[in-house]
């Protein structure tokens, strides 16, 4: 068997692929964060809770209404996105004129409250959610046993990232949004409803988090702290990519997934730390992040 750095080649290929899969989650989550920060200048610490809510709504749709995975993929982002819209209208919109810190503290607090409420209702060990019948099973790739569902996650994540990027960079709405970020007063003067656009942008960012939550439900335990565990890494991804840079967060998400995957082979104990080491190095050399504008 061929070996690379003393590790059997098949194992290494497997790890690279797994890194890519985890990277898909990082990319999808950091994308929502980057959109919200880029457009609204709000550091959305509720993102983890919204990701978790996506998974819980998927579970609730199945348990109470009998609506399966495919419905959840559509409905959960809408439901959680609506919650985001409500949150933005009633609370976050009051803080746009203040320092970033206020938005951060508010969303952090809301996140804790949401997680606490879910924990009180459903306990901490989590709920079962099965992989949809169409995506069960796995492919034998020779070097590893690849669950079909994980392949699906990568494809969907890439499509969602591309679609978001296209909407913001290539469409008229996207150009309004970018203009409103630069100079809201001027854009408003042209007769565009800027507050409504902000609200919908926040809703869309939240819907992306919930979408990732539904994708995660069959893989991870659906439990109240599932978002809190992931969100810290995702914040590191956003910081490394450059706050607010959409391309940056997507590329960094996939890249860090792979770095983390390789660390799990060579030095597993450090796999939780490696991303933060990268973050420290990037911040020291390029304070605005890899793709950020200083």
């Amino acid at each position, binding site marked *: 068997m061929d070996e690379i750095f003393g590790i*059997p080649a*098949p*194992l290494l290929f*497997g*790890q690279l692929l*797994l*890194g890519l*899969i*985890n990277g898909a989650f990082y990319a999808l989550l950091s994308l929502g964060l980057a959109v919200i920060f880029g457009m609204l200048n709000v550091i959305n610490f509720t993102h983890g809770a919204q990701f978790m809510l996506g998974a819980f709504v998927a579970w609730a749709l199945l348990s109470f209404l009998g609506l399966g995975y495919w419905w959840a993929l559509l409905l959960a982002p809408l439901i959680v996105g609506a919650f985001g819209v409500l949150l933005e209208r009633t609370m976050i919109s009051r803080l746009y004129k203040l320092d970033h810190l206020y938005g951060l503290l508010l969303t952090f607090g809301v996140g804790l409250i949401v997680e*606490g409420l879910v*924990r*009180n*209702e*459903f*306990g*901490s*060990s*989590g*709920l*079962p959610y*099965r*992989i949809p019948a169409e995506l069960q099973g*796995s492919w034998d790739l020779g070097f*590893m*046993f690849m*669950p079909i*569902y*994980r392949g699906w996650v990568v494809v969907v994540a890439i499509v969602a990232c591309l679609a978001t990027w296209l909407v913001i960079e290539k469409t008229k709405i996207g150009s309004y949004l970018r203009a409103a970020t630069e100079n809201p007063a001027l854009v408003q003067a042209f007769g565009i409803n800027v507050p409504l656009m902000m609200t919908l942008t926040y809703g869309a960012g939240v819907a992306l988090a919930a979408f990732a939550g539904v994708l995660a439900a069959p*893989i*991870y*335990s659906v*439990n109240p*702290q*599932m978002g809190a*565990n*992931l969100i*810290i890494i995702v914040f590191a991804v956003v910081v490394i990519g450059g706050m607010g840079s959409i391309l940056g967060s997507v590329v960094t998400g996939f890249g860090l997934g792979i770095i983390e*995957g390789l660390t*799990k*082979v060579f030095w*597993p*104990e*450090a*796999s*939780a*730390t490696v991303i933060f080491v990268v973050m420290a190095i990037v911040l020291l050399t390029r304070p605005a992040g890899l793709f950020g504008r200083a």
Partner: protein
Amino acid sequence: MESSRRNFLSATGAIALGAATPMTHARAQGAANTIRIGVLTDMSGPFRDISGPTSVVATRTAVQDFGSRGFNVEVLVADHQNRPDVGVNLVRQWIDRDGVDMVVDVPSSGVALAVNTVMRERNKVYLNSTAATVELTGAQCSPNTIHWTYDTWMLARSTGAALVRAGGQRWFFITADYAFGHSLEAQTMEFVRSAGGTVVGSVRHPFPGTTDYSSFLLQAQASRAQIVGIANAGVDAINAIKQAGEFGLMRRGQRVAGLLVFVNDVNSLGLQTAGGSVLTETFYWDLNDRTRAVTQRVLANGSPGGNRPSMGHAGCYSATLHYLKAVADMGAAAAKADGRAVIERMKAMPTDDDAFGQGSIRPDGRKLHPAYLFQVKTPQESRGPWDFYTLLQTTSPEEAFRPMAQGNCPLVRT
């Protein structure tokens, strides 16, 4: 500040339980005729379902079953957040301000050991049910402590040795990188080797914060081990086992052994995923008429979400009941004055309750009862919610736990 937070915690505990009686903060020098029991537990973190509110309900059920014998009993609740410093502070306040006489439950080995020291200093009664560390009856054993329900040695022996006997010779471990994971792994390795098995590899995952186990599972798969031992707990174990199913470890002929899995974890995993695996507990609600009866009482007292008691909860029930019997035997005033004397009395009396049946307590503080090796039912075998286990094997109390001579407990060293 501290005080308002404590009130808040007690209040939320009471609300969560739907308890009718408000929790009062009587002074330490308050009624000499009232025994105060503190349930120190994880109300909000990863161990909430295997301890938490159901532990509180189980403790209350014991108080209720004990009835009234000339003294009052109050139950207080606090959340240690799995942090040793928080746990120690809460216990000091309980003792100094609220006059707590006995502390029960205390999941998470780090907190359990920190509280052990305080309880010994203050000469109170410490009945640990949900922590796994074997140190509580080893080098750190204490005349004020009884380790009630289970420990890592017992899990390692029951699950490890049984699997080797069933033909699982080659082992690979996926281990949480902290004290509990290390000791569970080391003790299981010992049993595997002494039963003639081999350990072909192990990998340590960061704790806390690991949600994706696919890389580690792939390494386990590449090792061609027959048994993949999962040496972690709670949500970590659930994620690891769930993903092992996804990556087809079982379908490719490997057997996944969760070394510490509770009935509540199985409920969360679902039988589709957990079915066929083996695990060890010292209590199962559907074991016999007595266990079914005590489970009904715990549920009737409002275990949240119908969460059925696991061995940890059963331990809170059993320990509290036996403690109250000892208090009744020696009188409330004497019991409040000297924790060590209560423990001695508890060790001298045989135990008997609906959760564990008849048992005893060793001089080093180890409560003895049988250990059960269970196989988790498949969805086809299960007749309904929480019908999860088939009994494979019973280990007698004398053989289930580490022999006293091997523990190096200073209390019994000759």
